[in-house]
């Protein structure tokens, strides 16, 4: 079943067409990788889906519901989670507190007023272990290393448990082992989640991608399996800049 359907999406930043007539669909449980040279519009596409940026044209449907004009918190409640390119965790909060904020099954005021700050963390037992952060529960997120910060944000996305998760360069700054582990986590996530992943690391893409879309100048350049993409002439030209 199609979970997300993007049709003829447009956005302009002062004359620059960052996304220009993009259409694609994502199946439930799929891992779709978005590739493309710097400035191709990958992050902007994720911004449009999660509501950080408003489109100037086109439609975005989540399970059939038009969401392109919805406020971002409503889209989040409908089941869209986002990891940002620049890791964005709460540096003044502890690791456990970060997870508790991310665990937002009941985002309403009343439930927040009637629960203790960490009562939701119990439901996420095991996530910290999975990303090797259990010993840092009480540490401020601002004291984590870059790699650990990436892990923490991934852990937060797992805790949020959105049906559709948008990951912007999740392995940037990770070691090879860490990248492999991320791939493993993503594969197991895809049992019950749909993922759109922006990545530059081709070996990572090879391991996780069910399907690949290559973007260039805001539009789709190619779509297909890893083999199809690697042999595509247009893609080679775009990356080599001819």
């Amino acid at each position, binding site marked *: 079943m199609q979970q997300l359907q993007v049709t003829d999406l447009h956005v302009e930043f002062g004359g620059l067409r960052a996304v220009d007539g993009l259409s694609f669909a994502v199946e439930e449980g799929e891992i779709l990788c978005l590739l493309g040279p710097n400035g191709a519009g990958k992050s902007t596409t994720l911004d449009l889906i*999660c*509501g*950080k940026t408003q489109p100037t044209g086109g439609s975005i449907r989540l399970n059939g519901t038009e969401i392109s004009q919805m*406020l*971002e*918190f409503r889209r*989040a*409640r409908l089941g869209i*989670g*986002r990891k*940002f390119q620049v890791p*964005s965790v*709460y*540096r*003044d*909060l*502890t690791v*456990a*507190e970060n997870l*508790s*904020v*991310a665990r*937002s099954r009941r*985002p309403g*005021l009343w*439930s*927040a*007023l*009637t*629960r*203790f*700050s*960490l*009562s*939701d963390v119990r439901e996420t037992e095991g996530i910290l272990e999975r990303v090797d952060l259990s010993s840092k529960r009480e540490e401020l997120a601002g004291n984590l290393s870059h790699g650990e910060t990436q892990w923490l944000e991934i852990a937060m996305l797992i805790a*949020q448990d959105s049906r559709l998760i948008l990951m912007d360069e999740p392995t940037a700054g990770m070691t090879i082992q860490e990248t492999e582990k991320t791939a493993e986590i993503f594969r197991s996530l895809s049992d019950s989640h749909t993922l759109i992943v922006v990545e530059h690391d081709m070996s990572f893409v090879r391991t996780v991608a069910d399907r690949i879309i290559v973007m260039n100048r805001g539009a789709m350049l190619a779509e297909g399996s890893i083999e199809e993409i690697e042999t595509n002439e247009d893609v080679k030209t775009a990356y080599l800049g001819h």
Partner: protein
Amino acid sequence: MTSRFHYDLVALVIFTVVIVFGVPALMNYDGFELNTFARYLALAIVSMALALSWGTAGLLNLGQAATFGMGSYAMAMHLKLRASNGLPDFMGWNNVPELPLIWMPFESLAFTLLAGLLIPAFVGGLIAIFMFRARIAGVFVAIITLAFLVAFQLLVIDQQGLTGGQNGLTGLAQLSLPGWTVDPYSMGFYYLVAGCLAVALAVGVYLTHSKFGLVLRAIREDADRTRFFGYNVATYQTAVFCISAALAGWAGMLYTMVLEFASPTYMGVSFSLAIVIWCAVGGRESVIAAAFGAIIVNMLEGRLSDVFVEGWHLMLGVIFVLVVMFMPRGIYGLLSELAAKLRRAGRQGNAASIDPSSKTQLETGQEQ
């Protein structure tokens, strides 16, 4: 959290015991001294209310004095009606023919108490909805709330027939509860105010350790990020504004009872800025620290303003600048950094005495 929550509970209990039992004993149960201290305690409530919105949620509300004033006037209207036979005296002087409609329900104590909490909450909520729906943040929140404060004070002064204008409401009766006429120089009154502060602080401690408080801290750090987790940021911000305004109104009601009059100076800019200073001196991250800050600064003012009659405001300004420059997290920040240092020193000391190899590690660590 659990450990920090426990620290706060311990601090709350100690604080309550000190103000309920310690302070009266220190003052030899002297009614006049205790009335002065009750005034500090009422101001502590408005300071802790600001800590909720400013410290927890990062929303600097410079209009706190307006909601404080609303509570203060609500109580004063009730006590004025109790003191008057028919029309309050100042209305006669202003040629007001009969009791205005909005004064009538203040005959009832129950209505007055509710109004003193709910009117500030309602007005605070209204301003908050307008600001936070439009995603106004940072310094603009301070500017808008300050502008509201100035406009509101002008309105109150202007409506002389309703509010007593520049003179405020004076010649008030003492509050009479069933079976108890509240004399502001009595022990009973002191316990009433101290009890109110303790309850307000308990509410504040609970809120800061609830998920609500956690989400507010998340919003303070990165409101946009928090929206992507599905939280309606404007709703949370509006809620904390309402709660903070209601607490300020509560403080205002007590303040009127302490001083036995209500004045438009309670809604002045300098009073509002003073609240910010108390909160900053104590430490805005903690409601208990903010309450402590209000008490300390006001005690200082009580001692020093006799000596430096005109210079006190200048000194208050200097204190504020020094606090912002040298202890931005207030007394609370100073203490918690000290505690963290002691803990670390303790750990290192233990490690060194137990295991010689860790000591060498430590030394090499210091050389780097």
